[in-house]
């Protein structure tokens, strides 16, 4: 069985284990609460972790739909982009997949001298990280833009009045 076949055969289980590792990046009390509730609306983060990992595992195998990969990553990356994580911590969840794959497959692959299969699959994980990086940066850009836009919106009428006053002053000077 090739590595790809092995991953395909255990896709659900691996997605679940990856999700567990991601949950492990949150405090213990939180893990307990998020693990026990799978509801999409009362536990959106837990739900996003499970959804992202279970969608991404098969996509990693077919690896032909960049948009689908980005969509599946999107919610989780956007969530972690505004949580109290440094950028490195926020995106570390992608590399947890490498950790998992090595843990699950490396001994067997080394034994039969087929480590390059893992290396080649890991390239996909690296690419996944760069896609996540794009989404993360776009999210941070958006937060910065929203801050500026909000300040502008808060004073719409005041600015409109100030601009008119400025025009009045300028007109008088011209006369």
């Amino acid at each position, binding site marked *: 069985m090739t590595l790809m076949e092995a991953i395909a055969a255990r896709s659900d289980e691996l997605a679940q284990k990856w999700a567990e590792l991601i949950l492990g990046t949150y405090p213990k009390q939180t893990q307990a609460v998020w693990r026990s509730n799978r509801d999409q609306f009362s536990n959106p983060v837990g739900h996003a972790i499970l959804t992202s990992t279970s969608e991404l595992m098969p996509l990693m195998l077919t690896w032909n739909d960049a948009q689908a990969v980005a969509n599946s990553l999107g919610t989780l990356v*956007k969530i972690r982009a505004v949580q*109290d994580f440094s950028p490195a911590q926020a995106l570390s969840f992608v590399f947890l997949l490498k950790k998992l794959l090595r843990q699950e497959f490396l001994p067997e692959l080394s034994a039969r001298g087929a480590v390059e299969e893992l290396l080649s699959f890991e390239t996909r994980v690296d690419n996944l990280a760069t896609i996540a990086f794009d989404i993360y940066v776009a999210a941070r850009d958006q937060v910065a833009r929203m801050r500026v836009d909000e300040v502008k919106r808060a004073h719409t009428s005041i600015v409109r009045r100030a601009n008119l006053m400025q025009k009045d002053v300028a007109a008088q000077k011209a006369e």
Partner: protein
Amino acid sequence: MSKMVKPDELLKTISYTPPAEGWMDLPVNTSPGNWAYPAKQDKVEYLMHEMPGIFANPRQWNPEDVDWKLPSNWKEIVVNGFRERLDKYRSLKLFMDICVRCGACADKCHFFIGSGDPKNMPVLRAELMRSIYRGEFTTAGKILGKLTGARVLEEDVLKEWFIYFYQCTECRRCSLYCPYGIDTAEVTMMARELLHLCGININWILEPVSNCNRTGNHLGIQPHAFKDIVEFMVDDIETITGKRVKCPLNEKGHEVLFITPSGDAFADPGIYTFMGYLMLFDAIGLDFTMSTYASEGGNFGLFTHADAMKSINGKMYAEANRLGCKWILGGECGHMWRVVNQYMDTMNGNMQGPQMKTPVNPITGTVFENAKQTKMVHIAEFTADLIKHGKLKFDKSRNANVVATFHDSCNTARGMGMFEEPRYVLKNVLDNFHEMPEGTIREQTFCCAGGSGLNTDEIMDIRMRGGLPRGNALKHVVDKHGVNTMACVCAIDRATLIPLADYWAPGVNITGLHELVANALVLDGEEERTMNLRQEPLPGFEEE
């Protein structure tokens, strides 16, 4: 995003495992992004002069610094303030004593749901205060210390209070699920009062409080400027409808005083809701005036101190009396209605002049018995009553491109139990309406994460993670029903839901209820409308 990790730390390893210590031993993170800017020194000085005994210690300080420049006797101040409040508010004493840590509230707070920070679990947030209560005021706690969950009041505890009691929007979703009805919002209020006594505060709250006290509204706008701004909206209504509507200011002898949050006058998109009110009043010929002093329904005193709230609220009756109005009609606001519904009668009921009467809708004759005490009617109730009696003409086709959902503001939902009226109004002015999922609306509504004075941009990250539950439910109806508009009846919502939707459910417009009402409302003698209140083309007029 938290503080950047230094390269040499990254070289060692990316630490993604959270520390294993118990919550009491974890130092609080005071890096920027975790707090809103402290109040300006002159605002605190002004407020100390105007409202003695509430505020203290005006200075320049930075929460990122180790030294917060607290008064030398800060500990004594907090302990005495705590004792005073335990004696004054029986509710506080109960809330400190009766929690059995059942965990029902743990996953109900939007800040916890979005952040995963255990100190945002309502039980643990309250525990930040309870642990001090046990340590300072109970014998068992004094003797047994940590064994009873007690701890000593240290400067770090105060810092922790500042970070976490300003990550509570006082939305009261947690208390809905508490079998004892513990109101964590009131715990937050008490914590903030104690922090004020040491000069720990945020500018986004204190500047509006100080402006309100001086000019009547959050931005400190004076009467002449307020008049100009109202004129802009009257001009815009004329551009859209060809009709010049009235907006009397400070005129005596009208039946109704209309008060709305100043965000409706100054901020986009509140201005369209304001225009909506004026058009509604024109349609029914309401005998009303506005006041340039009671030019703010919002009351940031609620997020500050009971006495500050009382003081700011007083202008409503004072202006009703000065102008000789019989009752007050209130616009779309969240916390204004919490103050009106829960506290106004107790605080300032004695200020009601003899001319004030139980509100009666002059068009339909409906007596608003529910407003007998305060003499204040919510505009959604008022408009629903007008619609019920067939007094308004609508052309729903003008809202044909709107696929709407409704966000219940925490304060009007949990603070006054208003669920049906806004929905009834919405369904009468448009055809496409879809509820967000059960468990995220009505009394279980999720907060916009900007309430209680947290709608400032420097904590946008905190707001976004706190806004995730709302945004996630919104995204669901966007995907399922093509919702493109979220209506709400709160000025803070109208401001904060815009970035929230932008981030979590892009493509959704945020509108006030009366903006949609006025778009559909047919006025006598108006010209054919080709654009909505935002001066965007109406359906069928896109090409012109």
